[in-house]
């Protein structure tokens, strides 16, 4: 923070943007929730939920032989998801997130905030508990929690570019949302610090289209947003292909890091709708990495 803002002014600023963010998050969440039936769904649990026809890919252990024997086809037995889980969400609040390549696009941080809050809204709606990594806040549940989350997200405007190695309880799931442009070894270390405790997790990389394509030309001096120094490129168009290759490498490395610890990796570009990213994220949370597929791309990003 640059200067201590008067309390009243900051409160007004918050109350001005809060409803908009909450409403946007709710709207995004609602779109997704209607698609997947948030509550009362199949999952890990004891209670019988339904029989359904066997489909290719279902584990053989899940076949209910009694039911299969009664009929002509093979049926699997599904149980209702009962356990309430705690989802720990971290989103990148570093300076590099507050950037966009054109006025038509949202800043990466805005999209990350929206995704975070919408995910929390969706989870809360589904009866799960959610918490923010990096805030020493106990997991919250219930509708009122959403406003509190929104307030906390808007208030924390600066943060590190990688998640802190906070100890998380076992069997929790972690969701990391950010641009992950730090060097790969640092990212690897940070993710391993969380994953070593046996926690399942999901990495959502939010990027600006310009970061993928480098659509500039001519003699340009690029400056970092987090005091990384600058780079003078005499002819940007000549390095574009090289850059794109390196960016893809970076992304592939990130996916490898996630895969190495059994996490899912997803990417999202700010010129795509937030609903798509949220749906991918939600499916990954509900069904694990196999729901996403090995590539891990959320919305058309190259695997």
């Amino acid at each position, binding site marked *: 923070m640059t200067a201590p803002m008067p309390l009243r002014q900051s409160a007004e600023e918050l109350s001005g943007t809060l409803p908009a963010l909450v409403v946007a998050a709710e709207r995004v969440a609602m779109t997704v929730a209607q698609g997947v039936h948030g509550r009362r769904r199949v999952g890990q649990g004891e209670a019988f939920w339904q029989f359904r026809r066997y489909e290719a890919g279902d584990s053989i252990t899940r076949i209910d032989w009694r039911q299969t024997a009664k009929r002509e086809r093979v049926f699997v037995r599904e149980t209702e998801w009962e356990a309430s889980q705690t989802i720990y969400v971290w989103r990148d609040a570093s300076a590099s997130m507050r950037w966009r390549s054109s006025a038509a696009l949202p800043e990466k941080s805005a999209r990350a905030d929206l995704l975070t809050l919408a995910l929390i809204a969706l989870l809360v709606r589904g009866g799960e508990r959610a918490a923010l990594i990096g805030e020493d806040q106990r997991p919250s549940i219930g509708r009122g929690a959403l406003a509190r989350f929104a307030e906390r997200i808007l208030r924390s405007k600066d943060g590190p570019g990688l998640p802190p190695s906070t100890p998380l309880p076992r069997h929790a799931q972690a969701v990391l949302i950010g641009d992950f442009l730090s060097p790969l070894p640092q990212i690897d270390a940070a993710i391993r610090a969380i994953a070593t405790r046996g926690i399942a997790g999901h990495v959502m990389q939010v990027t*600006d289209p310009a970061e993928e394509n480098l659509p500039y030309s001519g003699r340009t001096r690029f400056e970092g947003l987090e005091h*990384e120094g600058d780079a003078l*490129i005499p002819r940007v168009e*000549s390095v574009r292909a090289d850059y794109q290759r390196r960016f893809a490498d970076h992304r592939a490395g990130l996916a490898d890091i996630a895969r190495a610890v059994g996490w899912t990796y997803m990417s999202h570009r700010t010129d795509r709708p937030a609903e798509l990213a949220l749906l991918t994220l939600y499916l990954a949370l509900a069904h694990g990495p196999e729901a996403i597929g090995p590539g891990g791309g959320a919305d058309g990003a190259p695997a």
Partner: protein
Amino acid sequence: MSLFGALAVLSPWWLAALAGLPIIYWLLRVTPPAPRRLHFPAIRILQDIVPKEETPAQTPLWLLILRLLLAAIVILALAHPLLNPPAQLGAAGGPLLLVVDDGWAAARRWSDRQEAMATLVDRAEREGRPVIVLPTATATTGEAPRASRLMRAVDARALVGAIEPKSWPVDRAAALAALGAMPEIAQAAVVYLADGLDDAAFVPFVERLQRLGEVTVMLDQPGALARLLQPPVSDPGALVLTALRPEATGPAAGFVRATTEDGRLLARADLRWTDGQASAQARIELPAELRNRITRLEIEGDTTAGAVVLLDERWRRRPVGVVSGATTERQQPLLSDSFYVERALQPYNELHTGTLADLLQRELAMIVLSDVGRLGDSERASLETFMRRGGVVMRFAGPRMADGADALVPVQLRTDGGRAFGGAMTWAQPLALTAFTTNSPFAGLEIPGDVRVMRQVLAEPGLDLADRTWARLSDGTPLITADRHGEGWLVLIHTAATPEWSTLPISGLFVEMLQRVVALSQGVGAAGGDQPLPPVATLDGFGRLQPPPASASAVGGGEIAQLRASARNPPGYYGTETARRAVNLANGMAPPRPIREVPPGIARASFGSDRTVDLKPWLLAAAIVLLLVDLVASIVLRGLLPRLRMPSTAALVALALCGALPALAQAPPTLRGAQPQAQQSADPLLNAALTTRLAYVQTGNGEVDQVSRAGLVGLGQVLARRTAVDIGQPIGVDIAEDELSFYPLMYWPITADATRPTPQVIQRVGAFLRGGGLILFDTREAGAFVPSQAAGGSPVALRLREILRPLNLGALVPMPNEHVLTRSFYLLREFPGRWTGGAVWVEQNQDRINDGVSSVIIGANDWAAAWATDGQGRHLYPAVPGGEAQRELAIRFGVNVVMYALTGNYKADQVHIEAIMERLRR
């Protein structure tokens, strides 16, 4: 320094700076343009990339060329190049003696002279010569011509700019003397800007100039010399003017303009000089009254004092003679007949009194006869002659005339004398005057409220009485009558010139009326007087009438006829504002002669031959334009305008150019092209034809039109809700302009102030009706409208009848009970609108015509107001007296009308439905 004849460079050492261009080239080449700066989050990846190309960034070649060109142009501009440089003035180093003829003849082409003087001073400045200026005409202050001191060219420029042509001739003899008084100079370059007119002093003057140095005489191009207009000579019925030109070679043409005091043009006459003739004549033929108003004659386009002739009272002087029949005047002046007339005329006119016989001996413009009873035959005859020559005879009535008048009156007078009002024993009040009609010479005069006429003589009514009447009393009886006699007038005031009969003689109006009458008369020649006449207004060098300069002095009345214009007595008006004498430049002036020969050894030049073009400002302007282009290019290269595409770049460049060169601002095509014209709206005809629409006739009354529109909108909503009819938004039509054939039904509210439809409009309406259209006429005034011719009625009803009469409709009848309209959708028995009770008229059912469908429905119930709804469907106007029940009926009537318009007599056939069905079944 002259490089190659047509181009000279004044500061050639600046060209050495061109050698510095390679340095600029090298500097620009090694200094790359600054990179654009961008924030970028994925900077680390970029930092890893080692640039493949290590060639340093360079200024683009085109920018390099642009900047070198810019530098070169600036250097060239500083070197100050001249195109078509003039030859050098005389010997080097000597002063420039600038002799200027600033007499009247120089004024015609004065701008040429000013330009020549400015150019000469510029050249003197460039060549570092001091300047002496010598104007040859007497100064406005009356001082004889005097040479200026030796001064720098900068100071000379101001002096030269202040020289104005004078309205008198040059005085070369005095200028010659001034040369002698001048400080001694030698090796001078002498330029003499002559006015082109020769006189005795020209040759000695030029020869004296030759002793000072090299002399160039600048003369006008042939045909550009000043011309002299002579005062007109008297000719009955016309002004004949002579214009003299100095050179007699070649044909020439022109015009003479005659204008009034206030500058209005009265006449324009041809002037034609044939080859070999120095003089040309023009005739201006005008009626005497108009001719009297001419104050100024001029040769069109010649802006000199010599081309102007001022006319004065010699052409317009109006001596007035007053005759009185009474003999007791001197004892009781205030009761005298002529006292008031004399007092009214005295300040403005030359006045003579005496017996008629005496007065007729004199030259007079007007004769006033104040209550002279009967005139003898010989007197009448001589007055008649007087009038035929243009004189005005003005007679006042009085007791003697009331006793019996002679024949010299403009109108026949009643023999029983006059009438009197407002006496002690009468009921009648004294009468005031009515406003003067426009054909009266008194038109426009303001009538004071206190002018009353107590007695007058009466005119016998006659056919031409009205034409001859100039003024009337408030009851219409003529007070002043007049009749034309030849060139002159006979005017009779039907009341006396004394306050006994009326208060007119003691009002200001009396004076003004007399002035007007005097103005009708023709002026006569002047009588000499010897009092000094001060200048009133004088002509300046360009022939414009101005307040006299302080140095202009008065002229003795006796010598004014022979006066020659000079600085002391410039041409113009002298005397007083009302009685003024004109002094014209042409008075007593010898015919102008052109300078044909100049003494040997003297160079001749003519005006307007200098074609030197200074290239410095153009080069500097080009440099500024290039600078702006460079600025825009730099901005674009730096990426400070990231979203700029090429067309808008061009627009920006154009904008920059416009800012730099106002001359270019007239036509910036890029800008103009960048703003496309607004799209034309959809074709209204198509709009009207694609959907069934109701129409209303626009009355021009905004309120009525709004109600019509709202009513049809409301009716359309009802139709959509209750019937199968799907109707678009209503359309207001201009009955005179718009195509009508698309509309099945037109609602036509009639207003009293509507413009009367022209026959063309009626024809259009008729065509609409014959084509099957239906018009619902609505007089909107609650009450029965009766279409018959005889019935009277409101203005609205009258207006409606005017529309209906030429339409060639069938007989109109009140709507019969079994009419189709009563059951075309709803079954109706009455047809109320906002009002109720008025009968509704339709055409009588004639099966042969239009299938028995009436083409008009006429009523007075203001239906549109009953249908009208606002945006929310609320009704706008109450229906009286029936309230909502009545409105429902009104709406039902509307539905029926639309159904009638759309289906015609279909419902009439419905009565036969049973029979038809029966037949079908069988």
